[in-house]
């Protein structure tokens, strides 16, 4: 197997005022194609910082990051933008959708900046398909402020998927969602992973991490534990179990 992500002694130091914040202190890790990894850790342990580096949104202060074998720290702004557009789908902690723009247009956005020039009709088609994948086809015309948190998160997932990236990165994709919606999102991730997509996500919910295949735990900017998930949960079965339980207390029909 070939490593999609290779981190070699990656450091990130924020210079704010007089104090330097050493957010990531020498992280080394490899993530192979087809993996499904959860990064966990306490608040402030550097998870988001690391994810932003992996997502080519930010650069490491020290060390090397090889994405598909190329050292990303050497690339210029435009090249990084193209990588973000083509290779990586990023799902942000706070959705980061464009307000006053319909769900469909939000999903079309990455194609606007894509190198393979699709016709307007093709873009529409692909965006609609992506929305279908996350089960939101009928909400295509809604604006983000007309959607629930879970629905907005799904629009964000659809947007991350629309350029068919090999790597999906998600920073706390279930952070603001109830447990049922969280499991639904995990279901989407699991089926994407089964189709071969490499997924790295940040979470601090232990039970959510159990839907992945491998857990990395960070503390003070370092990876302190790297374990495969022993008893992996399946979103579909969990969801069914949850529905049965809810039916019992008449939460749903």
């Amino acid at each position, binding site marked *: 197997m070939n490593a999609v992500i290779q981190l070699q002694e990656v450091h990130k130091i924020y210079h704010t005022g007089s104090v330097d914040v050493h957010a990531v202190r020498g992280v080394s890790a490899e993530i192979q194609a087809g993996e499904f990894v959860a990064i966990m850790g306490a608040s402030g342990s550097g998870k988001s910082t690391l994810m932003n580096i992996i997502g080519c*949104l930010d650069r490491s202060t020290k060390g090397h990051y090889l994405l598909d074998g190329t050292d990303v720290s050497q690339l210029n702004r*435009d090249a990084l933008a193209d990588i*973000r557009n083509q290779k990586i789908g*990023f799902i942000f902690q706070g959705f*980061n*959708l464009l307000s006053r723009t319909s769900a469909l247009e939000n999903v079309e956005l990455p194609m606007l*900046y894509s190198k393979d020039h699709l016709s307007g009709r093709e873009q529409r088609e692909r965006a609609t398909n992506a929305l279908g994948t996350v089960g939101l086809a009928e909400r295509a015309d809604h604006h983000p402020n007309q959607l629930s948190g879970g629905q907005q998160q799904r629009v964000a997932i659809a947007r991350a998927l629309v350029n068919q990236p090999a790597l999906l990165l998600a920073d706390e994709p279930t952070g603001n969602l109830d447990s049922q919606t969280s499991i639904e999102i995990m279901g989407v991730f699991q089926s994407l992973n089964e189709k071969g997509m490499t997924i790295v996500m940040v979470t601090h919910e232990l039970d959510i991490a159990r839907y992945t295949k491998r857990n990395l735990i960070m503390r003070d900017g370092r990876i302190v534990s790297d374990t495969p998930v022993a008893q992996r949960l399946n979103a579909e079965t969990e969801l069914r179990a949850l529905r049965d339980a809810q039916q019992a207390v008449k939460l749903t029909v």
Partner: protein
Amino acid sequence: MRRILATLKIAGRALRRNKLRTLLTTLGMIIGVGAVIAMVGIGNGAKSQIEAQIASMGQNVVLVFSGSFSRGGVRSGWGGAGTLTIDDSEGILREIPGVVAVSPEIRTRAQIAAGSQNWNTSIQGESPEYFDIRQWPIITGSSFTAQDVRSANKVAVIGKTIADQLFPGEDPIGQVVRVKNVPFIILGMLTPKGLSVQGQDQDDLIIVPYTSAMKRVQRVTTLGSIIVQAAKPTLLNPVQQQIIELLRQNHKITPGKDDDFTVRNQQEIAEMATAQSKTMTLLLAAIAMVSLVVGGIGIMNIMLVSVTERTREIGIRMAIGARGRDILLQFLIEAVTLSLIGGILGIGSGFGVSKLIAAKTSWPTLVPSEWVVYAFLVSASVGIFFGFYPARKASQLDPIDALRYE
């Protein structure tokens, strides 16, 4: 190409979201471009009006004024009584070859009245040749004659404004108008000319034989000026020279002394007039430039605000793969769209203003179509020039910083 189209769409949406702001921002451009278009229209109107005025002086005309312009820049009353006499005028016609017509002239302002109506107007004493030299035909009635001049008859030709003021709704021909209480019979009315470039009503005048003006109105024995017509344009300079010689001789001015009269030929007068209108055009152009710069700064300002407001949006776009160039283009297109909206509205309002002035002054204001193209290009350039800095600022944002921006 698709990318540009899509970017255009984004820019359009951003502008539509803030219609009032868009309009206010473009106000500077509207005024600037409007001023340019109005300026060109009025300038052209003024130019054609000046040309018409020069032409209306008559062809190949030399003007002789009493008094000297050169004497310390002061001149003793152009057209008023002065140093020229009827003998001078007759001498010019008789003795200078190439002179085909002269009109001795005396001008003043006076109160005139008819019935109970009063009016203050310009009184001109002229010869009957005046109407030919000036190519100013009588529209109704007839001119006075050489006989009227010889006998200093109390007859007059009036401009349209006099007819409107003193005889509203009546036929003025044959009516009596009292000039300084001397009754004159109206023989004819001149073709209306409308306003001059200086904004004067050219039809507000009454023309009587110069002898009548001298004896009966002003009670003077001298002329204000003499209009001389030469046969050919090439004769203008020799005729001018000969007039100077003849008048110096008549007035017994010894060599070395200054003339007590001034001779100007038509060309010189035309040059003076165009110089004046050039100054005017320059002034308007300066105003237009200033408003364009102010308009551009307005656009720059609002674009800077817009970039700050939309920092997060910029961050999102960059995070999903927009290059700096895409962001630059987006904001540049937005700025250009703004300035073009201003430009188009400005072209419209400029046309409106020049039409309004045309209606008020009866000048034929005309905006040549290439100026519409220029105005369009200038607006676009203003947008690019003043939009570039904010757009560049937006394009150089760091994706992570932009995303974190609250």
